[in-house]
């Protein structure tokens, strides 16, 4: 690695990507906390949001974004009602593989909707002005990087307040710690799960808005590979607790951001192998997660 290419721009972009991945990790981690279900179809929620932005590109920006949020949250709640609820209590493998089928189905539907005009891919350009750089203290930062970091930080603080200071947040944490006991003391399972799914839908919509700035060209496999990478990050970080999962998502986003832009491509051919070998090593040494330290952490699960 030549250090000269590791500019401030690269680092700030990597932090921006890390922020987006951290948000996706929260979205996946919230649902996992209450349902013990890894939602592989989470990327398709983001994809649906991105398509909504593309199809409403001629509308005023605010309306376009509101529609995006409405569509994604509705889809997320529908997923809970139609898919997650009947599967509650099934083995984790079955739940995970069922979400493969859902992801496959949503992607097939998106392909048909997209192909109505004869070609694959739509453009969502309404926010692309955010991709322009601005100069802060003599260095160029792309506006979207600042926006991503701001949105991610804001969302995480709001979420923390919501989980720590409100009754429904308390119930959610209780359900994540021990679902059966929580129900015995009067936590309403369906409400808590819907709350978590609702929040994870909101986050997916925010991710869709920010991702289309970086990649305005939307295809049916939009955010698919990102979801896989985030899932790896979440498990490496420690999926049992929300903050370790988030940190895992941020770390893998930051690392892939630095790697993608800082290394010349002819030297990176075996880099995926090195990265995934490290993933295996971490999992072998710390199967519960890289950031899951000691007993104290084991108490808080969301």
């Amino acid at each position: 690695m030549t250090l000269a290419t590791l500019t401030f721009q690269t680092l700030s972009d990597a932090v921006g990507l890390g922020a987006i991945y951290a948000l996706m990790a929260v979205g996946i981690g919230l649902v996992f906390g209450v349902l013990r279900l890894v939602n592989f179809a989470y990327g398709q929620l983001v994809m649906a949001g991105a398509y909504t932005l593309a199809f409403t590109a001629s509308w005023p920006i605010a309306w376009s974004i509101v529609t995006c949020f409405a569509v994604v949250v509705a889809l997320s709640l529908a997923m809970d009602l139609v898919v997650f609820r009947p599967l509650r209590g099934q083995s984790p493998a079955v739940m995970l593989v069922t979400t493969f089928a859902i992801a496959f189905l949503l992607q097939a539907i998106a392909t048909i909707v997209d192909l109505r005009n004869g070609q694959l891919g739509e453009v969502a350009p309404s926010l692309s002005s955010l991709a322009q750089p601005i100069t802060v203290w003599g260095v160029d930062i792309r506006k979207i990087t600042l926006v991503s970091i701001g949105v991610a930080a804001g969302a995480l603080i709001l979420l923390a307040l919501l989980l720590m200071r409100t009754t429904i947040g308390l119930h959610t944490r209780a359900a994540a710690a021990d679902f059966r006991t929580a129900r015995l003391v009067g936590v309403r399972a369906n409400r808590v799960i819907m709350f978590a799914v609702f929040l994870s839908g909101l986050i997916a919509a925010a991710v869709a808005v920010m991702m289309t700035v970086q990649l305005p060209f939307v295809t049916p496999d939009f955010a698919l590979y990102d979801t896989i990478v985030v899932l790896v990050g979440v498990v490496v970080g420690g999926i049992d607790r929300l903050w370790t999962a988030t940190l895992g998502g941020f770390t893998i986003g930051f690392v892939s951001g630095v790697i993608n832009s800082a290394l010349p491509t002819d030297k990176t051919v075996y880099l995926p192998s090195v990265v995934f070998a490290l993933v295996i090593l971490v999992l072998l040494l710390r199967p519960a997660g890289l950031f899951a330290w000691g007993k104290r952490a084991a108490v808080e699960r969301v």
Partner: protein
Amino acid sequence: MSRRVDALVELAAPMLLVVAVGLLSTTASPSNQVYFLNALVSVAIVVAIYVFVGNSGVISFGQISFVAIGAFAAGVMTVPLDSKKNVLSTLFPLLRDHTIGDVPSLLLAAGLGGLFAFAVGLPLMRLTGLAAGIATFAVLEITNNILREWTSIGPGATTLSLVPESTGPRQGTIGALVVIAVAFAYQRSRLGRQLRASREDSAAARGVGVRVHQQRLWAFTLSGALAGFAGALLVHQLGSITTDQVFLDLTFLTLLMLVFGGMTSLWGAVVGALAISGLDSFLSQAEEGVHIGFRLDLPTGSRFVCLGTIMAVVLILKPSGLTGGREFRLPRSWRRR
């Protein structure tokens, strides 16, 4: 006596189903035969995955890496010598200057698949749950990365072509039958039963002396060998292959087939593979228009929507799969007391 009959029926049912598909493929027109051969190779791959995932209950995204290794080993070693020196000139001399026959290539693929699975499983089998899933996924990524970049052992990012297309109805049927027979023999053996006990209750199995780590490693190795063998069948069916054909899509599709049929039984693995590949073939025909009493003509692109809907609906309504995860049994009234 009755038990022995039951065991015989358990093995005979999936085998008869495969033989039926094999016989049907000989009657099909050459353009339709490919669908039947696809189905037979899918059975081999899914049963290979079942040997580990079904018997241990631990999910693995890594078995397709052994399919890939088998496919490329068998493919590279059977490309005819005279064209090999031109199209695969970057290979190690040992690989470039030798070519082996069809059956040896199948055995080589099985051996390599088993060897790699053993090497990978040795450290990885200590993991369970999601950590195991992600670690095996990392194995898949690493295998794909190396196969795509290292041109001394294979074609790299280009298509491997000119592989003899020897997986016809005969080799496809026999290959699938061999995989089923090995899987059946394993799951009824002492080793297989110990692993299945650990799947139901890991702590209790440990308590009666089952070495869970060791049992999982045996199953992983056997599954890797069968997956390598299935990969060789695949490459000999297609005639040409790229690394992306044995990567993420195939991983997700074969796991769906396994769970769709019923993850915990051999019968489920076979039924799932045949049901989904049959459905997919039928739908792709229906996109071009097909007569089933009336003319069915699906709009272009709707094939995957139908397939996705059917898979999702079945899994939601019957999470234990079409077969409920049970082996085939004759109806009670048929069985001898």
